[in-house]
């Protein structure tokens, strides 16, 4: 038994090491190919939004069809404050997150009185309103012409402009965001969220303040989206309202459903599949349908969404092969079991009762 434990610990350490090598060495593994790196940056940005949404949808069981609005809030706040007000990019990023959190709080209080499709419709409405704001508030957002010339983000005075620099920046955020989400899930708060998903009436009669937790997780998901939006603005240096409308919100939803909610990394998996499929479509469709416009993409992903919901409602992380799933499930269950039994033994030896 102890031997087995040490074996899995050893194997785990190797897995961690291999993961770290792949993560850090990736820009070299792809020979600095900018196309690959920029694809990875995009995956990372969407993964960040997706991680927040996975917490909201997968764990708390609440839906948001307006998540791109928070992505846009982060992007425009960073753009405006750095380009026109001369703020440092990091401070602007924090300001964007604070604004998104505040808006999520104000919107969430009335909206989370609703459930299921009413909630979906209300968040959709919120997305439409924010999109209109981005389009019409020309003094700040530049309207439909877009916002040009967003200055770069700096670390220790060095402006980050190349794809590999952004790869490290964004992937660090994804890892940190995933770590934070994982910690939330494995805590009192995560249990409360899953309890709400399971039975609201039971959760509340055990002391879970349902309204508070729904709001908190909505705010957290807004912060994730806003941070991703800020990074995106500094990455592309040009933004326009179409990136933050209803269609992007739907795509975020599709990513979360593809990735699934069996793990907080579902957002990352979904974003990777979505971006890769999208790139593949761009390459393949013109060969098959020379006159097809951009709409084929939404048709394709719409169909994919329906198929996923029918045949794979738990998404990819929900059907991952046992072996892979064990990496993120059983290993911690085993350690949890060990500590529970150990501490229990310790108490029995101490002779303390109830």
């Amino acid at each position, binding site marked *: 038994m102890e031997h087995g434990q040490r074996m899995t610990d050893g194997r785990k350490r190797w897995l961690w090491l291999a993961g770290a090598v792949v993560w850090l060495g990736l820009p070299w593994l792809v020979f600095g190919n900018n196309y690959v790196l920029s694809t990875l940056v995009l995956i990372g940005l969407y993964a960040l939004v997706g991680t927040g949404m996975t917490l909201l949808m997968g764990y708390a069981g609440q839906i948001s069809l307006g998540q791109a609005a928070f992505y846009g809030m982060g992007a425009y706040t960073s753009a405006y404050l750095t380009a026109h007000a001369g703020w440092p990019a990091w401070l602007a990023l924090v300001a964007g997150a604070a604004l998104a959190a505040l808006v999520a709080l104000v919107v969430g209080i009335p909206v989370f009185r609703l459930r299921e499709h009413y909630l979906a419709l209300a968040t959709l409405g919120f997305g439409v309103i924010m999109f209109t704001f981005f389009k019409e508030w020309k003094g700040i957002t530049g309207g439909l012409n877009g916002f040009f010339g967003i200055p770069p983000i700096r670390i220790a005075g060095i402006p980050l402009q190349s794809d590999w620099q952004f790869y490290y920046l964004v992937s660090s955020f994804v890892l940190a965001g995933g770590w934070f989400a994982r910690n*939330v899930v*494995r*805590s*009192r708060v995560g249990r409360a969220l899953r309890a709400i998903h399971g*039975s609201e009436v*039971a959760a509340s009669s*055990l*002391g879970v303040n349902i309204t508070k937790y729904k709001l908190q997780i909505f705010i957290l998901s807004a912060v994730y989206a806003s941070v991703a939006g800020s990074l995106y603005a500094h990455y592309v240096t040009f933004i326009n309202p179409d990136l933050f409308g209803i269609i992007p919100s739907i795509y975020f939803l599709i990513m979360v459903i593809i990735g699934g909610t069996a793990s907080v990394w579902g957002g990352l998996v979904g974003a990777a599949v979505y971006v890769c499929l999208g790139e593949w479509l761009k390459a393949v469709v013109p060969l098959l349908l020379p006159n097809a416009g951009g709409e084929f993409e939404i048709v394709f992903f719409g169909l994919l969404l329906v198929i996923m919901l029918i045949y794979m409602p738990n998404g990819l992380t929900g059907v991952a092969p046992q072996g892979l799933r064990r990496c993120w499930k059983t290993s911690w269950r085993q350690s*949890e079991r060990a500590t*529970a039994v150990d501490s229990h033994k310790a108490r029995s030896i101490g002779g303390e009762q109830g």
Partner: protein
Amino acid sequence: MSAMLLEVEQLSKSFGGIQAVQNVSFYVKKEDIVAVIGPNGAGKTTLFNMISGIVPPTSGFVRFQGAIVSGKQPHELAMLGMTRTFQNLQLFADMTVLENVMVGFHSRLKSGIVSAGFRLPRTVKEEKQAQEQAFFCLEQVGLAHLAWERAGTLPYGMQRLVEIARAAVSRPSLILLDEPMAGLNPQESKQLVDVLLMMREQGFSFLFVEHDMETVMAIADRIVVLDYGKKIAEGAPEEIARHPDVIKAYLGEEAV
């Protein structure tokens, strides 16, 4: 004379034209075990829903540990030390048995989303404590070996036990049990009666609805009888067993 725990005063509830509960008053003292009995549709569940804050009363009020609590939300009552189980099970089916019971410990922990997200030492300590308490509680009801099973996969009788463990793990001052024996086979019922008797020994107070008269007579200190939403009798088990109205309304049916 022990202290008052729960006082129900003239509580009423109507759903449209239906008077589900009418002017019901009774009390539960510390370390009391009080049973609420009555035929189907007598208003027992509605009464429980009002006491636990799930349904607002039409009139009347509830006092818990000396303070008026009508109008409070269920989670506020849980924080004050009142938890409950449900007639139709409300387990968190996708969570493990241990996690279900750990949710029951929610009211005793403090970690918020920030402390949890950064896994601050305080959270780590709290998690360990929650796990220990939940495990201990499962051991007491004899389910420790099932701690890591998904709750939804357990047989019905064990799910009932998990629900009771979940309501008891925070050591509330009062637990409401709505038909804890419903749907159990004789062996499971016996196991549950043992658990309830053990909890009684440990000084738990509870208010429970039960149809099984044998259980009620065995564990209740006092019995409140409802019929068509009204309280028709209240007293010690032996008094209730002899009460003519009760025999007519309730025991009569069973005696035939």
